[in-house]
């Protein structure tokens, strides 16, 4: 079995030697370079824009503004078009950094220089700078906003149940705006041949984004070919098409040459979204024995003046615990900032901070162990639909992670554990993520040299999909993983599910599994019908794949290699098709992924910086496809969120609303020296209710619950409850 094995990524060698080709590495003759000029103000209009000096600068081919741009054919649909306003359509400015001109030149440096020569006459209006300034204007977006989830959910009468509950917790929690900050700045290279458009784009899904570009430029979808083999980190910021994706083909049309736009390091912070800041209130009502009677979770997040995008912080809340009376609401409010995007893990990361912190507060008030409180409120079935869960192993996660962590050593008294000047705290929190699935297609070709080729448009974003999906095909055909190659990242290939929303394993993985099974079936049919085959006349159901060929299940001696079979029949390739169609709404089971986190913090009592020295997490994600890439993915998700817990804060300037630190100099993510021991447990149970493969997603659930686990540990260490992220030392003084 290849599935489950801890093997290194198939593309690892290429990545460490520099042979791997990212979008920026693609070379096309005659490419011109575009630089995007961002607005210096965050609200107002472009009263005038003087491009004459820029146009005369060396190497400049064109300067495109709202005054001279060609028209877009149509506005492609949101949410995968990240902003509902097409770039350069008018003179309005909604946020700082919004693109107001495109400068195209022979070289990037020439374009950068010329961009500094553009003189903009701004008409300033007064911006709404911060979430706080706009809080009183919060509203429920019409048509559900961009996130396309219900903005309100109600069961029972939560207000009445809360009033009647003997024990209550009612608190406000805040999460800061976060930046994805991937290593790879987004890059798009586009060229036209007549009405055919070729586009190399750093995207998390060529098949989701190709139609958007086709609509924007009014060409049939099949005239657009989009490529993206490898993404150098996205975390969601490449799951939507941001304005630069449309500006590159536009500029290519204007200058009649291939045009590359690679946004600057700073524009990664302003031009490809962020996780919006939230203000949330959680009201919990419970019996003395810890049984939850009522839960109200209300969230407001900042959105732009262009779009209503919710950070869906309370969307998961109705599904998590067995609470009879519950109300959840998501509102937005307009701030002069860019439109937020999806960032690992949309909604749930921010929401879990509030909900799981509040549960800790309740446990403390009840004098009850926080883990026991969660056990008592375990949702045995999906509380929303009443359907049974598919493969929920959360209780086993609780047990195994608690034991590994040594949770029973915890003295519940805050401030009770010390080591010299260090205060020691143990905290825990849970996490849940709805499992999403999408249709996905793949083919698997068996070739006459005994190898197999997967074809599917999947983009490798660093999570290990190329490897795990190769393992799936290898097992399906009885081949070693090394005998499987993967053609991917090209819209001419069968459509994969996007590489976001944790859909690669479950959806694209299932398509590969089905395709491999189909190829195997074709090989078996060929063999049993072939007089010259040792398997001739056998019942196809008795034939199995084994070590590069076929054999009888019961008589291992009888069989032959694929190579012999195909060559004898003069067949170069046998193609298997895989088409995964999720069950959708009427599925028998409710599907989600689950996790639990335990964190040990140490805090020097004089310089109260929080150090996370130990973290143990357990996840219920069905079947684990590759122990190594899974562990790596989970550790990465945890580290990413430790950043949100302790240091990351994309703060707006209180006057202009501009981000204060759109640069890695001051937008700090954790470095190696910040990371303690991180232990990850997977409680496996192949979950074939979910899909044929039995695997659910991991990339997002691993980043839910960490902030609360840290905050709860901080409370245990110090007795101080920090309800506003990040937990910086000044909040502990």
């Amino acid at each position, binding site marked *: 079995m290849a599935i489950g094995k801890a093997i290194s990524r198939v593309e690892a060698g290429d990545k460490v030697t520099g042979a791997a080709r990212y979008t920026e590495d693609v070379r096309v003759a005659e490419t011109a370079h575009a630089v995007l000029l961002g607005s210096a103000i965050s609200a107002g209009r472009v009263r005038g824009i003087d491009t004459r000096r820029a146009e005369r600068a060396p190497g400049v081919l064109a300067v495109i503004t709202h005054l001279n741009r060609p028209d877009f054919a149509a506005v492609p649909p949101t949410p995968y078009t990240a902003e509902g306003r097409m770039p350069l359509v008018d003179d309005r400015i909604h946020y700082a950094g919004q693109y107001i001109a495109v400068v195209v030149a022979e070289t990037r440096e020439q374009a950068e220089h010329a961009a500094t020569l553009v003189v903009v006459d701004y008409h300033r209006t007064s911006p709404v700078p911060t979430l706080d300034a706009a809080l009183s204007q919060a509203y429920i977006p019409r048509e559900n906003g961009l996130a396309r989830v219900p903005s309100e959910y109600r069961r029972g009468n939560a207000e009445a149940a809360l009033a009647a509950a003997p024990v209550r917790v009612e608190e406000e929690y805040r999460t800061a705006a976060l930046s994805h900050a991937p290593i790879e700045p987004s890059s798009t290279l586009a060229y036209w041949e007549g009405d055919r458009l070729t586009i190399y784009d750093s995207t998390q899904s060529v098949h989701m984004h190709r139609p958007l570009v086709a609509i924007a430029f009014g060409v049939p979808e099949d005239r657009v070919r989009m490529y993206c083999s490898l993404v150098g980190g996205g975390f969601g910021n490449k799951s939507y098409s941001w304005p630069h994706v449309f500006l590159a083909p536009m500029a290519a049309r204007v200058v009649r040459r291939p045009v590359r736009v690679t946004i600057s390091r700073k524009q990664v912070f302003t031009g490809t979204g962020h996780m919006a800041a939230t203000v949330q209130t959680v009201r919990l009502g419970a019996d003395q024995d810890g049984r939850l009677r009522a839960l109200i979770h209300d969230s407001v997040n900042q959105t732009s003046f262009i779009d209503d995008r919710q950070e869906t912080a309370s969307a998961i809340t109705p599904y998590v615990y067995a609470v009879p009376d519950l109300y959840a609401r998501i509102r937005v409010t307009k701030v002069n900032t860019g439109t937020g995007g999806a960032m690992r893990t949309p909604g749930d990361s921010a929401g879990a901070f509030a909900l799981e912190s509040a549960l800790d507060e309740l446990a403390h008030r009840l004098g009850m162990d926080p883990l026991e409180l969660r056990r008592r409120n375990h949702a045995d079935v999906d509380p929303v639909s009443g359907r049974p869960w598919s493969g929920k192993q959360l209780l086993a996660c609780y047990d195994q992670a608690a034991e590994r962590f040594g949770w029973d050593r915890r003295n519940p008294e805050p401030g009770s554990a010390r080591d010299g000047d260090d205060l020691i705290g143990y905290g825990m929190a849970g996490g849940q993520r709805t499992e999403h699935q999408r249709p996905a297609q793949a083919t698997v070709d068996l070739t006459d040299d005994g190898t197999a080729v997967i074809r599917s448009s999947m983009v490798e974003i660093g999570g290990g999909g190329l490897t795990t999906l190769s393992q799936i095909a290898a097992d399906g055909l009885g081949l070693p993983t090394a005998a499987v190659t993967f053609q991917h990242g090209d819209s001419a290939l069968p459509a994969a599910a996007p590489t976001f929303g944790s859909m690669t394993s479950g959806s694209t993985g299932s398509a590969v599994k089905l395709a491999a099974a189909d190829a195997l079936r074709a090989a078996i049919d060929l063999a049993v019908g072939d007089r010259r085959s040792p398997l001739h006349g056998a019942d196809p159901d008795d034939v199995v794949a084994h070590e590069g060929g076929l054999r009888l299940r019961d008589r291992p001696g009888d069989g032959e290699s694929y190579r012999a079979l195909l060559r004898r029949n003069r067949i170069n390739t046998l193609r298997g098709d895989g088409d995964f169609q999720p069950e959708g709404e009427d599925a028998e089971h409710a599907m989600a992924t689950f996790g639990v986190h335990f964190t040990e913090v140490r805090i020097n009592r004089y310089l109260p910086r929080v150090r996370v020295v130990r973290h143990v997490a357990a996840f219920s994600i069905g079947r684990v496809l590759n122990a190594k890439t899974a562990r790596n993915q989970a550790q990465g998700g945890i580290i990413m969120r430790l950043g949100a817990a*302790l*240091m990351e804060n994309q703060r707006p300037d209180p006057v202009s609303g501009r981000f204060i630190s759109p640069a890695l100099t001051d937008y700090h993510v954790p470095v190696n020296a910040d990371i303690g021991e991180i232990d990850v447990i997977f409680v496996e149970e192949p979950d074939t209710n979910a899909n044929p493969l039995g695997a659910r997603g991991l990339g997002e659930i691993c980043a839910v619950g960490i902030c609360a686990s840290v905050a709860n540990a901080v409370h245990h260490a110090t007795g101080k409850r920090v309800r506003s992220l990040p937990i910086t030392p*000044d909040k502990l003084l």
Partner: protein
Amino acid sequence: MAFLRPTTWPEALAAKAELPGAVPIQGGTDVMVEINFDVRRPEALLDLTRVAELARWSETGGRLRVGAGVPYSRVIGELGDRLPGLAQASRTVGSPQIRNRGTVGGNLGAASPAGDSHPPLLAGGAVIEVESAARGVRMIPAEEFYLGVKRSALEPDELIRAFHAEPATGPQYFSKVGTRNAMVIAVCSFALALHPAERRVGTGIGSAAPTPLRARAAEEFLAAELDWAAGLAPAGLAPGVLARFGELVSEAAAPIDDVRGTAGYRRHALAVMARRTLTWAWNDYRKAREQCA
């Protein structure tokens, strides 16, 4: 943009005299960041990496003269025993790559209030040697070198040649608080040096005022309070002394709120670092005295 590459010190001084707008570049770890961000576009860059003497250090008559081009990694490796406070500070700078290229001279040239070499230079009583073709050498005590945020006493036609300091005669410590554990600009920092021969205390505060500065009142207070002759005497540090020293250090600062931290936290952290470094230093001092006795 012209790129000037002198190979000798006189050539470098001549180039700077002729073109005062030329920006010296040593390790480039500040200069290149500014150029990349288009913060400035100097008419010329004056590359000092070929001026061999800048990368040398020497010790004569009990004084060290350390060339402006000696990178942090060499300060750590070659001068750690003689300048322990500066070496500790150097270890906290950036990453290995930055420590291989970045220099104390460049840190002085940039004169950022957050530069990590400044507190130990202040505490150790370092003197900066600057020179111009027209007026020759000036020796500027570190304390008089820093004039404002990223402003120093260096004149447009001058270059930094070296800094001078005495090898440590007593314990020296550096402490820095960052928003994470590496690759970080100081939220605030503090350096302490005990000079037993003169029964004097040196301090340096970083990132908590428009310039790096000494906490003079704290130095005087401590010099008077310390039982320099303590030797084997049981006299530890009275808690009152530690606390007061911390307070005085904290009072000397003039911090602001910024992205890295609040003014309140900086004042608090300075007092903590002052007490910590003093505890470490005094323990070392007493141990050394015990061994002598």
